[in-house]
């Protein structure tokens, strides 16, 4: 632990020096350079074009929410697979069948949603 942390001192020093360098450059240019503002200059830079007029915060359609949830559930399921995979050999056959049952239940849920027509894009 001690050695590990000592090695990071260099990283920390590099980080601090980097911040000081960049910060002094920015502050220095702000102090020294002449500065004037206009409406044109304030607009965001899009390859020299006038920025698109449409609202920037585009909304995602509510229907995607269902797929987000389905993804979430199957994604988080993997959390159980990792410890299972580690202890798989020491527990033996029972572990295999338990995991098959677990995934079958999840798959059953998906099949149920499918049959109910929830996955249809309508």
């Amino acid at each position, binding site marked *: 632990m001690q050695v590990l942390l000592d090695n990071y001192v260099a990283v920390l020093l590099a980080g601090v020096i980097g911040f000081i360098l960049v910060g002094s450059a920015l502050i220095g240019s702000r102090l020294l350079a002449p500065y004037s503002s206009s409406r044109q200059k304030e607009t965001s830079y899009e390859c020299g074009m006038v920025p698109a007029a449409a609202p920037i915060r585009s909304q995602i359609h509510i229907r995607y929410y269902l797929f987000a949830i389905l993804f979430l559930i199957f994604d988080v399921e993997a959390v159980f697979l990792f410890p299972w995979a580690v202890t798989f050999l*020491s527990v033996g056959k*029972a572990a295999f069948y338990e995991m098959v049952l677990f995934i079958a239940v999840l798959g*059953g849920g998906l099949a*149920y949603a499918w*049959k*109910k027509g929830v996955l249809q894009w309508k």
Partner: protein
Amino acid sequence: MSNELNLDYTLLTPEFCLAGLAAIVLGIDLFAPQVRKEWLPYITAAGLIGILGLSLGWVEKESDFAGIIAVDNYTTFFRVFFLATAAVVVLMSAQFVRDRLKNPGEYYALLVVSTIGAIYMAASRELLTAYISLEVLSFSLYVLVSFARMDPRSNEGGLKYMLLGAFASALLLYGLSFIYGSAGSTFYSDIAAAYAGGTESFDLALLMGLVLLLAGLGFKVAAVPFHMWTPDAYEGAPLPITAYLSATSKIAGFALLLRLFSSAFMPVIDDWQWMFAALAALTMVLGNLVALQQSNIKRLLAYSSIGQVGYMLMAIAALSSGTASALLLHMSGYVVTNLAAFSCIIAWYNLTDKEEIADMRGMAERAPLLAAALTAALFSLSGMPLFAGFFTKFILFQAVADEGFLWLAVIAVVMSFVSLYYYLMVIKELYISKPEEEGRLQVPLSVTGLTAALAAGVFYVGIFPRHLFEVAQEATNLLFV
């Protein structure tokens, strides 16, 4: 350690059957749409009763699954208790769901699944298992409360219930993490062993853990000041789910509390006794006083059930084998009574679409049997002699007083008289006020049968409390060894 684990899956047969039943119900809903409307509730109820019979096979057995789930008399008592409650609620729902709700399969399947959670809350002997069971019950209830998708009140009640419930489980979990840190284990028996010699000095982690645990579980059983969700969820939920909330959700919370505190935290009783006593007093007083000014029957019963929670919390404050069995008896009486009351209210709502107290006027003329059963139930809730409420309250208050909490028992008695007032206001509407419309209402035979059976149960517990009391004693005597 892992070699000595008792992995006897047969101990969990009733719950496996329940999961299977839920799958069957969903399957019928999916593949046989003609069957589902008329027969689904009866198939579900028959399955629940069958599993209830099956679980009687574990009477007087004592064993556990891998040290995390106990199968003893206490578990068996609550298996029977929750299965019977679920069966009654399913039967009460039959007409309501057919007329008003979509997706009956999911409705009944969720009820069955929530029963598994409730049973394991009573059975678990380890904090993680207890927590997961609690969430199984809670999640099913969140969905069930907001099941009337077309009714904005239902969605709203569901969302509020869900957010506050999730908040409460976060508090509960933070408390559990401190208890784990303080005791070094999540098993009830290890926790008790860790504190057996008494804590050396002031154990802040334990105290914080207990406070947070109490706040989290206080939410789940709706103890004041953690009761804000109760009236909203009760009013928003479909009526049979309101009945279910007031019965299973509450009792499961107490089943968990009772086993947890008697088998894990008994050595540090001085640290938490006062918290429960204060909570009990506050809950009794506030629940009953706020109930006085309610105009909706669901909200009235919500606040009256909060008052009842206060009585039950007294038993945890004065925890001993005497109060534990008195608590089980009182909970049984309370649930039978509450289900009887709700079965009348649901029948009335099915016939008239009304749930305000003022709209119940003249029920005695239009549906005399419903009015009589509702009156019996309300008298029992207030604790009149002859009805279930009297004896169960009497035994409970006496047991609490015997443990040195006379002041709590006195508050409880006073509050029982207060509650009599608002129950009488309802009864007045039923009998004295003139009905808005004339004519007898035709109550379906099945509803009449169920209501009569529940009302008979109210009288049975009231007149022969000894039978149930002996069962309750059998169920709790292993908790205190």
